[in-house]
């Protein structure tokens, strides 16, 4: 569980807070027409976090952190014959090693993503509190304005797909590692590349299917 995300809470917190703050400042800076109300800043931060930054960007970051971890762990077990040892003991090594990781990720990663949404919005709120161009009331009004519960559902559906990708692709590459320690590095790099690309493609397809 720790290696499957709970160990990433600190990293995700820092990234979310700063990204929330930066998105908020950027939106404030971009609004130069008095016709656009300032509460759109809160709205923009909320929407970008819930729809894209928390689920997709955080999962991309987690795919680097968790994915390389899984690939190298299972890859090491392969080249040091630990997987052979499991097989000899009559254990179905693939399901024994991979299945629990996928299940655990399907539980922990959505929680991390919700946590990231809150912190991102909190980051914007802190900017609102200390900025002269925006008031907290406007920001708070903005983050509640025109709220659509389905967007959370959409984000969670995406996250479940991503959680599956983040664990299964590295597990596959780790499991089929051949050779020595050099190949573990190769598997772990490959798995991060492939899972990132898969996340981006699945993200596009799901968005097309769910939001339009």
């Amino acid at each position: 569980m720790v290696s499957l995300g709970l160990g990433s809470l600190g990293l995700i917190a820092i990234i979310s807070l700063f990204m929330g703050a930066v998105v908020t400042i950027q939106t404030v800076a971009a609004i130069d027409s008095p016709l656009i109300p300032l509460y759109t800043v809160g709205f923009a931060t909320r929407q970008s976090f819930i729809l894209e930054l928390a689920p997709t960007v955080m999962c991309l970051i987690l795919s680097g952190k968790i994915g390389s971890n899984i690939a190298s762990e299972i890859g090491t077990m392969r080249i040091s014959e630990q997987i052979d040892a499991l097989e000899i003991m009559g254990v179905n090594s693939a399901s024994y090693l991979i299945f629990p990781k996928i299940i655990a990720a399907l539980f922990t990663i959505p929680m991390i993503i919700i946590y990231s949404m809150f912190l991102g919005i909190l980051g914007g709120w802190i900017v609102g509190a200390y900025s002269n161009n925006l008031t907290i009331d406007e920001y708070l009004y903005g983050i509640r304005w025109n709220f659509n519960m389905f967007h959370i559902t959409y984000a969670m559906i995406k996250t479940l797909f991503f959680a599956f990708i983040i664990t299964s692709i590295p597990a596959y590459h780790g499991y089929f590692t051949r050779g020595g320690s050099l190949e573990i590095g190769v598997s772990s790099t490959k798995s991060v590349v492939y899972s990132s690309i898969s996340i981006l493609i699945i993200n596009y397809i799901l968005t097309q299917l769910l939001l339009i």
Partner: protein
Amino acid sequence: MITVKNINKSFSGNQILHDISINFLRGKTNMIIGASGSGKSVLTKCIVGLHEIDSGLIEYDGRDFTHMNFKERKGIRAEIGMLFQGSALFDSLTVEENVRFPLEMHTDKSKEEILDRVNFCLQRVNLENVNHLHPSELSGGMKKRVGIARAIALKPKYLFCDEPNSGLDPQTSIVIDNLIQEITQEYDITTIVISHDMNSVMEAGDHISFIYQGRKWWEGDRHEILKTDNPELCDFVYASRIMQKFRKL
């Protein structure tokens, strides 16, 4: 008895094993010797089914292993103990948990019975007070011995040891050789030991197969091996100076 008939194995076009047939006898320590890279480890992995063979037949006491499905093989594997060349201990588990693992997989003994068995096996390989260490905290030779303890935990009917005494000092090495021999005779099991070491071949080898470039080159017992005039086997047996002196006597 394990019977291997005409097995061939290649990896992506590169043939490693050529038409090997050997009978591994019950109650005997069957040694496989040969130079590095000759295919000894691949041969044992084929026998236990970690590599699928291209052609040939493998039988465990008359039971055709080659054509079994996963479930049927699992039944046979519960009777196999295996020590890997690199020990293959589970990194994330302690010594005790490693030895306990096969017992928990295949028996429904109580916790106390399992612990007794674990301690008994660790004692047999001269390891005490290491139960709670992780493999990374052990020396290479200690890992080998834990590997042996894990292999014998289930009282296997078939015991495979890939270089059980590489990396051990001469004394411990003899202890391990004797242990393997004792277990083999005591429980009347079929033991296959891969070795480079002529000392342990002379110490423990009841039946010896010499593998040369993926082929079974010679077969016999430890008395015959000293009288052999097979040139490749002579090169292997008399590679060390001590053995050369021994030959002159």
